[in-house]
């Protein structure tokens, strides 16, 4: 075998640290996966541009919170508002015309959008990397020999809150109901007088806002803010798939599971194993249970 295995260690504090790191990473994955899930659930679109959306969020956070030096809450509000407008632009400018097109064409158009965002960010922000954000609490504390950062706890809390809010929104509001109806059957929904166009626009706006939140959070834990952070979009795929792609709660569980697995692969096998292990897990889940652990089981209609 030409692949070298790292050393397995049984030291509990190392493993605890890996677990904590994994959960922290998993929380980030959950934010990203939530964005995938929102879009996929309502519009059946696999948004390969979500990583770029997130990068957009991180750069905007930089602009509003650092360069413009706005008050934190005002800055976050402006950030999310701008992201929301971008979401509407994506829908009304592009995705709207793609309703009814083939699956792959739509995937490719999201790749086109990703390319545009990447190019524009490079043009407007330049290739130099920026220091990561430092607006959330920066300290840490020790638990059983392992370090827990405050910022990870904040991320955790925000993700849980977002999932809860979305859950309540879908369950108890009229718009949420209409969004679920469109997700189930767009034609029937349209026939009932629900405007799929509006629902889709709301969905894209919500996904963009989630990307804004994600960018803000991820901007605090990434090494530096530069063009490479879009990769988080791809790296969160396994999390979204394991969680089932159609379930809000699933995105959290999937995120945590994959985060922990990745972190352990990273610690025990080596960094290069991180992605292959995550994607192998995804591969196996796809083959055994394509709808993920919590996804809805739609029957393929012939």
């Amino acid at each position: 075998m030409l692949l070298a295995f790292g050393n397995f260690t049984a030291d509990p504090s190392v493993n605890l640290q890996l677990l904590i790191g994994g959960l922290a990473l998993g929380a980030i994955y959950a934010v990203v996966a939530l964005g995938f899930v929102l879009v996929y659930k309502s519009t059946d679109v696999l948004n390969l541009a979500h990583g770029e959306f997130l990068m957009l969020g991180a750069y905007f956070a930089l602009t509003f919170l650092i360069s413009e030096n706005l008050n934190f809450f005002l800055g976050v509000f402006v950030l999310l508002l701008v992201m929301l407008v971008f979401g509407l632009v994506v829908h009304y400018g592009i995705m709207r015309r793609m309703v009814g097109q083939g699956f792959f064409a739509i995937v490719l158009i999201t790749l086109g959008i990703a390319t545009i965002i990447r190019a524009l960010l490079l043009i407007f922000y330049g290739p130099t990397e920026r220091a990561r954000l430092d607006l959330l609490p920066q300290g840490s504390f020790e638990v059983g020999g392992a370090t827990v950062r405050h910022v990870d706890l904040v991320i955790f809390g925000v993700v849980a809150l977002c999932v809860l809010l979305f859950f309540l929104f879908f369950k108890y509001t009229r718009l949420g109901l209409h969004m679920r109806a469109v997700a189930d059957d767009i034609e029937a929904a349209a026939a009932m007088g629900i405007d799929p166009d509006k629902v889709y626009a709301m969905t894209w706006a919500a996904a963009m806002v989630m990307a804004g939140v994600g960018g803000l959070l991820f901007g605090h834990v990434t090494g530096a803010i530069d063009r490479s952070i879009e990769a988080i979009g791809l790296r969160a795929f396994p999390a979204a798939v394991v969680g089932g792609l159609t379930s809000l709660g699933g995105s959290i569980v999937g995120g945590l599971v994959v985060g922990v697995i990745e972190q352990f692969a990273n610690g025990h096998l080596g960094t290069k194993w991180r992605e292959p292990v995550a994607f192998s897990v995804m591969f196996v889940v796809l083959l055994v249970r394509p709808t993920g652990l919590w996804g809805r089981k739609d029957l393929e209609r012939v």
Partner: protein
Amino acid sequence: MTATENPAAQQADQTYRPSTLQRFLPFVVAAVVPFILGATTDDLNFWWKAAITIAILALVARLAWKWTPRGELTHREDMRLWRTPSDRSWAALTMFGLLVLPFILASDFTPPMDFPWATWFAVVNLVLIFAMGAAAFNLLVGYSGQISLAHVAFLALGSIVGGIVGVQWSGGNMWLALPAAALAGAVVGAISGLPALRLKHLYLLLATFGFHFVMMLVWREYLQEYFGFVGIRFKGVNSPRIASWLHWLPGIDPDENGEFIITGQFRWYWVLMPITVLSILFMVNVIRTREGRAFAAVRDRDVSASLLGINVARSKLMAFALSSAVVAMSGVLASFYIGSRGEDSFNVQTVLNYAIIIVVGGFSSIQGAIFGSAFFWFLPEWFKWAREELWFVRDIEFLSDYPSEIDLAIKGFLVVIILMFKPDGLAGMWRDFKNWLSRSLARRNP
């Protein structure tokens, strides 16, 4: 009596059968004349050469048009690759163009406004390599409807096979690496297609993407094990060469040390062009066969296809194997042509690039890949030239400050715009143009 005879007479008028010689003559001319031109017109001015070339092009196309069977076609005639007058003309034209192109590009010529003549040759060769890989990709995702993002994995596989067979075992034997890569590509491709038997759409896309990452790991491990950070060098001692027993062939004069190394754009062109053309023709041919039509049936509806007696599993795996084999071969060619492959040679951006190529080219037809990759490689060249030479572009500072970013943005916008408004891409526009042209030509001289 006369009333019944007349239609029959008209039928006879429309039916036309050229002799075998006539059928092949335009193609023979298209095949031979470029070499004669290339060998004999050294002392002619470029413009003279261009004029002669265009005149011959027109003649060849005209003859191919004229000497095409018409009327009630037999089944065999109907199944030919180039069936209609316009098909045959375009085929002859393309053949002529492909053969005369290297002589033109190698000629010493300065176009007006310093258009970058010399770099064009490199671009043309890259277009050939990418067209081959993208066409195979298109066969899989466009024609067979099996969504996959694993094609770059097969380029990497091609590099690995090229490294093992072409470098480690035989020190530059690309000719051995090509079939080996095809074989490896077919086998691994079929394996990578296994999820397609169970998954569709999104899930298939993700599964193949997972495969991509696994392959990237294999690639990195392989590099580290045998080559280290520098990556594989396919240049120098590892350059492909023509075996000595073939040195008698016309046009092949060995160097002083008795070797004929494939180096330089001109020689590479003569390696890449035939391989690309043959493999694309091969794929176009496959989709006309029973096997290939089954691909389309499976794409449209696989449950119904199985009712029609098509073995769906076999069809899907065939599509994966075939496509991957060709992609792996193009990976070998790219490795040897570019000369080195390292850690960063394959990444997600490469996946995107191929996606851009097939979208812009039009992903409902295999030929679209050719347009797409030509566009992909010519756009930056053209843009660079425009930035440096065109007075009204040169002065826009913004453009020269961010050349590659703007390139990228243009590509992104094009993908979006084409998918929104012209989903058939450049190939679709080309088809419309050809239809328009042959209609207006047919009106003038039926």
